[in-house]
């Protein structure tokens, strides 16, 4: 497997693509990053992921793999030498998969809901839900980390990557809504974890600058609001 051509199709702002950057970094795999323009998707992306036409896609031995959680597990299995991404014990793997599903299907859906919530009351409810979700994950962090720095213990692993990729967008939500979501008082474990995660060797050089992400988000939301105003009525 070593030395084979590895390509990643992604975008700099995509938290899901960031997961792949980090995982390949952990395994010290050399890869080519292809920055996609989602407004004008490349032929390679459309051919590699005809089902969803989304990033990220990992291409290894000319075979495309899609869906970030499937890609993370593939990376762990295709490059089996240490450090490992998933725990070795089946029960700890199950716990990691359970929380990955919660973060992706519940918590991230709530985070996206903040942007689409209309009106002050709906916004507040959406933000409260995100915060409550983080309190739940704080408890999970305590159980998984067992007093160590990361969900996976001494080194970052699957669950650290799954949640950590959203830290930039969490910051965006905090700044755009002028609130604190990752609260040091309510979630001391996660607050400390977030700092250490961002400093990790496999993360710090690939994580997008959070203020650049904020500028990008502001631009995108502004364009969306403008498009909505100019759109014809749909009745």
């Amino acid at each position: 497997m070593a030395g084979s051509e590895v390509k990643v199709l992604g975008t700099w702002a995509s938290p899901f693509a960031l997961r792949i950057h980090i995982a390949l970094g952990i395994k010290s795999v050399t890869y080519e990053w292809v920055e996609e323009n989602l407004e004008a998707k490349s032929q390679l992306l459309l051919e590699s992921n005809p089902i969803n036409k989304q990033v990220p896609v990992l291409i290894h031995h000319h075979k495309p793999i899609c869906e970030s959680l499937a890609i993370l597990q593939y990376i762990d299995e295709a490059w089996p030498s240490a450090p490992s991404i998933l725990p070795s014990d089946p029960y700890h793997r199950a716990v990691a998969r359970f929380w990955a599903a919660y973060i992706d299907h519940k918590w991230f859906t709530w985070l996206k809901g903040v942007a689409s919530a209309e009106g002050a009351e709906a916004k507040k409810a959406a933000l409260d839900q995100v915060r409550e979700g983080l309190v739940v994950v704080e408890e999970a962090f305590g159980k998984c980390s067992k007093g160590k720095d990361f969900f996976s213990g001494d080194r970052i692993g699957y669950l650290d990557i799954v949640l950590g990729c959203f830290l930039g967008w969490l910051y965006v939500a905090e700044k755009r809504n002028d609130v604190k979501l990752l609260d040091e008082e309510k979630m001391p474990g996660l607050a400390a974890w977030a700092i250490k995660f961002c400093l990790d060797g496999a993360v710090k050089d690939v994580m997008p600058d959070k203020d650049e992400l904020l500028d990008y988000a502001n631009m995108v939301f502004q364009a969306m609001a403008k498009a909505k105003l100019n759109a014809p009525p749909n009745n």
Partner: protein
Amino acid sequence: MAEQKVKLLGFWVSPFAYRVIWALKLKGIDYEYIEEDIFNKSPLLLQLNPIHKKVPVLIHGDRVISESYVIVQYIDETWPHCPLLPQDPYERAMARFWADFAETKLLNTAWLGLCARGAEREKAAKLAMEAVEKIEEVVKGKKLFGGESIGYLDICLGWISYWLPVWEEVGSMQIIDPIKFPATSSWMNTLLHHPVIGDNLPGRDAMIEYFQKRSKDIYESDWFKDIIRLHLHP
């Protein structure tokens, strides 16, 4: 660890619980089944799965695992004989991808079709059919997704062979046209004739009655209108 006692909390008509039943039976693992009334949740369920409060939940010794596909992978890794996931990392990634696809694009839309009415039912059924078109290409030329024997993807998609026809009947909709989808139809048939699957299914008449009531109750609920808006009119 493998010799520790296994218990499964399920609900008689849950396709998710059946994934776990099939995995346990395929591996020949003894377990105690505990029926849960999901409309009157027990303190045991609320204690074991406080996050989602759902079945299935697997109890193995002092370990508790929730989420059907997490449980199936746990079973596969704890009892490695008769492997369910393929050995090759690429094939495993494909199995995981298609399991996720079928859940989000077919199961969710078919369920919406069951519970919706009129134009929204039609829209949901159409989306479900588009998902089956993709699945048809994957299963073409294969006896089972797992090859000669039942694998992870057969288990995750197994509900299509038995629950989906019930939902089609209750919802008066056709999603699996055997002429349009011959490979999928053939696979459904193969699965139903496999002793582990065919001998471990809920009664069809009881299912029809259950889903008729469920469809009506959900359609009339306040929260369903939000679900429809979110999924069919984004």
